[in-house]
Each structure stands twice: as structure tokens, then as C-alpha cells.
């Protein structure tokens, strides 16, 4: 009892002792008109739906269309994932949002000797056309916006599988809508460097952009992933600067293929983080929107308003969640989701509160959707576009984050451009430094995290809604299916398709590989095999883990 009383009295006199955002921007006690005096409303803010789109890309924003409520989903085989997708769709998710497993991102098959124990664990296992067929069963591809989360070069294969499945069902490519992440360069910052050598990464990414621009016009070709970069611990401004830097590499590659800027930019989108520092995240999203419009107009001469509009999804920050007292995470997620909506998000994924503990259960997945639905239908925050626009504080903070981002752009330029900043390891160093500093602040209690370094409690014995498990038989079945396919397919047709793909790879970087990849898929070739051919064409090993030999 004595201890409780002491806690109450010490918190009564407690002061807020932080004068900076979590990204380190200095904050004043309050803001007034002097802090926004230099801002020309029409030039640098503008109404929602007007250049430079600081206040949002649509005039009527959510009255025109609510944000898409998507929940990332991928577990076990295509069969299990298809069932969970249908559950989420029935419960009001706006569209399927499928993530592939680790072997899939690496571009190896489930029967790879090193894949044991990892197949279908953190995403769905996709190896051949049959998997995409089962994954999309019962989902009308011409009436659904389907999101495929595969960032790696293997996106080229999985997207082609999706196209073949559409073809099989007699659906015109022009009716397909959805998105594929297709941001292989960023993947090196997610622990996948051997899966995405820079040359292969740039090539496969640009292939998808080019192919869709010509034949699948309603598809969002690339979701430039700022979120995963941010999860490494970097600041809000670094999130924009590094993410845009990677995005511009693809854009320059697409221009080299002869695409016109306004023909493909409207089909790029972004994936941002919404971290726990509420106003900083809102200001970041506003700053990113303004910067994108300026870069597209000033540097690339884009004219189509859709090229200037920064369209983005948000993933609430997984790294802000902790396993201690896990239900608290539901609160963190709700604040982050609110920041995303106040920042003008187009599509939102809320983490599940058990994310730092295990894969989401059906129950925790459901709570994540309900979090979005309470925001959308009950709180009223969707009624007015950019409700914080004009706030002395928010406008000032938006400017500061933009300035900070421009400084980092300059530094990248001084280092010889983004490719060089990546190759030299500078980006890695910046991330490692940021992660270390954040942990040091937590250790010293300069940064408080409830349940971690303040208000600790004895650990729970169990996770509130249990733990989602992938039964071992599921993996076994996936592996057997791949082995069976490899044994039973028509070997000469397969060999011919592989040889044909090889010939196309020899025609140089500008030769789009999607048509020959489609032929390989029809002949029963798998993700690992097709990626192996492409990797070898660029002088890399057939197997990124260098454990197996090519089967051809």
C-alpha cells in the first residue's frame, strides 16, 4: 500500500520533460502566428486537392472515398491464406492484402533445403501457378483491388503468376486492379541483401513498371516502401529522404526504357510508417506530400495532376509495439492509425496488438480492423479534409520536416547519389546509428515506454488471444506439392521455356522479361527456378544461399 501512495504523489507533480520530437526536432512551448508568418498559403499549402497537395490529394477527401481498410494477411499455404482472406473480407476489409513468406522474398522454393521451418510461417508460401490459383479462389480478380506484398525481385515472377491466373479465367489485363509492392532495393534493409542485388533489383522493378504501363493500366506497379526503412530506427525526415531516393532510382530506370513520366508516375504509390509521435507523423505525411509534388513537377516536368499526387498507404509502426502488457499495443495502434487518417492516408493497415509476440490470431486481426472502423464511422475525424491544416504548430512542423529532408537529399547528392549512398554502406550506418541511439535513450529512461522502462509488471503467462501457429503438416504438404510438380511436369516444355527465358536475359537490361517468365510459369516452372535464371544472367549464383545447383 505504501508503495502505491508514493507513486500517486510523485506522479501528481510530474512534468512533461521532453522538448523534442522523437526524431529530434526542437519544440517550443507553444506556436503562434509568428511561426507561420513566412508561409504563403496558396504557394506552399494550398487547399486540399490543389498543388502542392500539402493538405491532401483530394478536395473532399474521405467524403469522396474512405481510406481502404486493408489488413496484411499471409499464413501457411495458399489454402489457409485464402480462408483468412475471406474471413477478413467478410468482416469489412476493403481488399485482400497478401504477404509472402521469407523463402518467397528470397526467391527460393519451399523444397529448398534451407527453407525447412520457414515455409508459410511469416507469409503465404507461393511457388507455382497452382498456389496463386488457390490463393485467389472465389475472389473475382476483375472486381477486386488485390494487393500483393512481395517486394523482392521475385515480385516479377509472382506478378506474372497473377497475370497467368487472370488469363486462365479469361479476364482482360486491362480490368485488373491492385498493387504489388515491387520495391526490391529497399529489401536490403530488411535483412534480404542476397535476394536483391542492386542490378537485378532495379531491372525486375522496372520490368513490372514498364509492362503494366503498356498492358495492365489500372495496376499500381510499385509501392515504394518507406515503412520498412523507418522500422530500422531512423527519423521521420530520413524515412522520406531514403524512401524517395530509392523510388527515384526506379523512376529513372523507367524513363530510360522510354516511358513518358505522366504515363507511369500516376501508378506509383507509397507505404509509410505512422509512428508513435503523433503530431510529428502527421506533419511528416504532409511534408512528404508537398515534397513529392515539387520533385515531380520541378525535377521531372510532370504535368498530369495524378503524377504530382503522393498516394500512400500507412502501416502503423510495428517497432513501437512491445511484448510487455500486450493489450497496451492496441492503444498505440489506435493513436498511430488516427495520425495516419489526420495525415490523409489512402489505405491503412493497423498492426495486431500481438505483433511483437507472434503471428496475429483471428481475434487480434479482427481488433485491428475494428480499430479502423471505429475511426471511420464513430469518431468523425473523416468528415473534414486536413482538419489540422493551418495550425501554427502543424504547419511549422511540416516545414521543419521538409527542411530536414532537403538537407538529407543534399547529403545524398554530395555522396554521389542514392546508388552510391547505398553501395558505400552509408545508409546502413545511418540506420545502425539511429537504432543504437534510440535504445540508449530507452536504457537511460530519456525515452519512456510504458511496460518496458516504466510501469513494469510481472510478465503475463500467456498471450490474451492465444498464439497463431502454423502446423508442421502444412509445411510438409507445401513441400510435397512442389516436389510433385517438379517430378510430374512435362520436362521438355519446361526446358524449352527456361532456355527461352535465358535467351531473353541475354538481350540486355531493357529487354522486358515478363513475357518469357509467363511462358515459364505456364510450363510449370517455379519461383526459385525462374529467379535462378535471372540471377545467373546478372552474374549472381542461381541460389542466393548457394546451397543448391541449377536443375537445368
Amino acid at each position, binding site marked *: 500500500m505504501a508503495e502505491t501512495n508514493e507513486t500517486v504523489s510523485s506522479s501528481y507533480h510530474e512534468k512533461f520533460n521532453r522538448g523534442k520530437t522523437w526524431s529530434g526536432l526542437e519544440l517550443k512551448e507553444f506556436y503562434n502566428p509568428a511561426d507561420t508568418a513566412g508561409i504563403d498559403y496558396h504557394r506552399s499549402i494550398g487547399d486540399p486537392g490543389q498543388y502542392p497537395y500539402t493538405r491532401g490529394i483530394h478536395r473532399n477527401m474521405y467524403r469522396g472515398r474512405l481510406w481502404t481498410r486493408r489488413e496484411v494477411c499471409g499464413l501457411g499455404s495458399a489454402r489457409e491464406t485464402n480462408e483468412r482472406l475471406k474471413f477478413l473480407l467478410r468482416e469489412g476489409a476493403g481488399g485482400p492484402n497478401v504477404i509472402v513468406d521469407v523463402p518467397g522474398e528470397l526467391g527460393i522454393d519451399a523444397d529448398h533445403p534451407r527453407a525447412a*521451418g520457414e515455409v508459410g510461417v511469416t507469409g503465404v508460401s507461393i511457388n507455382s501457378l497452382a498456389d496463386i490459383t488457390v490463393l485467389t479462389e472465389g475472389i473475382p480478380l476483375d472486381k477486386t483491388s488485390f494487393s500483393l506484398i512481395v517486394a523482392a525481385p521475385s515480385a516479377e515472377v509472382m506478378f506474372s503468376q497473377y497475370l497467368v491466373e487472370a488469363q486462365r479465367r479469361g479476364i482482360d489485363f486491362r480490368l485488373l486492379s491492385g498493387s504489388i509492392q515491387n520495391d526490391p532495393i529497399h529489401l536490403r534493409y530488411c535483412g534480404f541483401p542476397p535476394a536483391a542485388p542492386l542490378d537485378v533489383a532495379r531491372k525486375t522493378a522496372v520490368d513490372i513498371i514498364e509492362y503494366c504501363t503498356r498492358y495492365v493500366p489500372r495496376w499500381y506497379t510499385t509501392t515504394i516502401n518507406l515503412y520498412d526503412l523507418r522500422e530500422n530506427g531512423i527519423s521521420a525526415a530520413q524515412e522520406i529522404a531514403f524512401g524517395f531516393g530509392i523510388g527515384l532510382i526506379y523512376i529513372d530506370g523507367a524513363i530510360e526504357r522510354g516511358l513518358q513520366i505522366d504515363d507511369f508516375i500516376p501508378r506509383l504509390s507509397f507505404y509509410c510508417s505512422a509512428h508513435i509521435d503523433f503530431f510529428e507523423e502527421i506533419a511528416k505525411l504532409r511534408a512528404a506530400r508537398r515534397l513529392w509534388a515539387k520533385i515531380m513537377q520541378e525535377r521531372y516536368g510532370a504535368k498530369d495532376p495524378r503524377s504530382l499526387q503522393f498516394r500512400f498507404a500507412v502501416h502503423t509502426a510495428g517497432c513501437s509495439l512491445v511484448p510487455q502488457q500486450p493489450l497496451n499495443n492496441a492503444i498505440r495502434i489506435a493513436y498511430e492509425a488516427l495520425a495516419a487518417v489526420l495525415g490523409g492516408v489512402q489505405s491503412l493497415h493497423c498492426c495486431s496488438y500481438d505483433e511483437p509476440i507472434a503471428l496475429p490470431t483471428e481475434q487480434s486481426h479482427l481488433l485491428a480492423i475494428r480499430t479502423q472502423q471505429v475511426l471511420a464511422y464513430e469518431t468523425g475525424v473523416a468528415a473534414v479534409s486536413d482538419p489540422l491544416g493551418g495550425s501554427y504548430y502543424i504547419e511549422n512542423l511540416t516545414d521543419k520536416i521538409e527542411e530536414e529532408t532537403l538537407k538529407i537529399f543534399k547529403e545524398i547528392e554530395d555522396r554521389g547519389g542514392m546508388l552510391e549512398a547505398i553501395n558505400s554502406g552509408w545508409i546502413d550506418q545511418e540506420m545502425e546509428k539511429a537504432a543504437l541511439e534510440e535504445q540508449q535513450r530507452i536504457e537511460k529512461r530519456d525515452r519512456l515506454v510504458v511496460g518496458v522502462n516504466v510501469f513494469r509488471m510481472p510478465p503475463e503467462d500467456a498471450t490474451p488471444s492465444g498464439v497463431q501457429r502454423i502446423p508442421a503438416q502444412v509445411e510438409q504438404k507445401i513441400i510435397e506439392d512442389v516436389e510433385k510438380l517438379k517430378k510430374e511436369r512435362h520436362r521438355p516444355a519446361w526446358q524449352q521455356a527456361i532456355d527461352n527465358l535465358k535467351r531473353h536475359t541475354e538481350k540486355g537490361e531493357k529487354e522486358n522479361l515478363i513475357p518469357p517468365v509467363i511462358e515459364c510459369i505456364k510450363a510449370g516452372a517455379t519461383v526459385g527456378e525462374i529467379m535462378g535464371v535471372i540471377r545467373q544472367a546478372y552474374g549472381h549464383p542461381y541460389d542466393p544461399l548457394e546451397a543448391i545447383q541449377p536443375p537445368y
Partner: protein
Amino acid sequence: MAKKIRVILSKIGLDGHDRGIKMLARMFREAGMEVVYMGLYQTPENVVRAAVQEDADVIGLSILSGEHLTLVPKVTALLKEQKLENEILLLVGGVIPREDVPAVKSHGVHEVFTAGSLVEEIVDYIHQWVNRRAKT
């Protein structure tokens, strides 16, 4: 002067989440330990071989993608084969459900530190274990 504590840190399996373990490598060094971080995609065999070669006091494995119950037993089996289970402190960190901790430990893991652990607590644990081992 006491010999520095030698630590092998490694990712294991195909999980690529390495923010935490790279940060730990830096903080263990700052705490006066000698650290070898083996990097991504290591096999149980690689890790145990390195621990033997480096005469390690501690092995720290990082697993965030749910493979802990598949991969950890392989490491502990190798350590037992070499009769090192009492010589080397084996720690596992990452995304590990609390209900799995007893199972992970039952294979011979000394302690599990999940994401959200304080580094100072891990460092204390290592020092205490090394001191206890010195007395036996």
C-alpha cells in the same frame, strides 16, 4: 585483469530482422565484452563451430520470424554433442511468445529475452552467469 567475456551473436535460419542484434553487438562491446556478430542466414552448425573456435562464453541467437521451436533444438543438440551445454551460456532473443518460453528453455536454453528487453538486464544476466560458472 579478468578475461573479457566472449560472445557469439548470430541470426539463424532465414529470418532477416537484424536491427536488434546489431544494436546488441554494439552495446555488449560498450559493456566491455568481446563480440563476434556472425550475420544473416547462419546454420546451427556454423554457430556452434564459431563458438568453439572463438572459445565463446555466450551464444546469443536472434529469431523474430517464428522458427524458434524448429531451430533452437538443433543448436542445443550440437552443444550437448560437444558437451558444452554447461560451458556456454545460450540465450535466445526476438519475437518469442511467452507460452513458448518453457519449451525453448526445456531444450537447454538458459534464458529468453524478447523484443522490448532492456540491454542492461541482459548484460547483468550474462555477468552473473559467468561469475557463477567461475565458482563451480
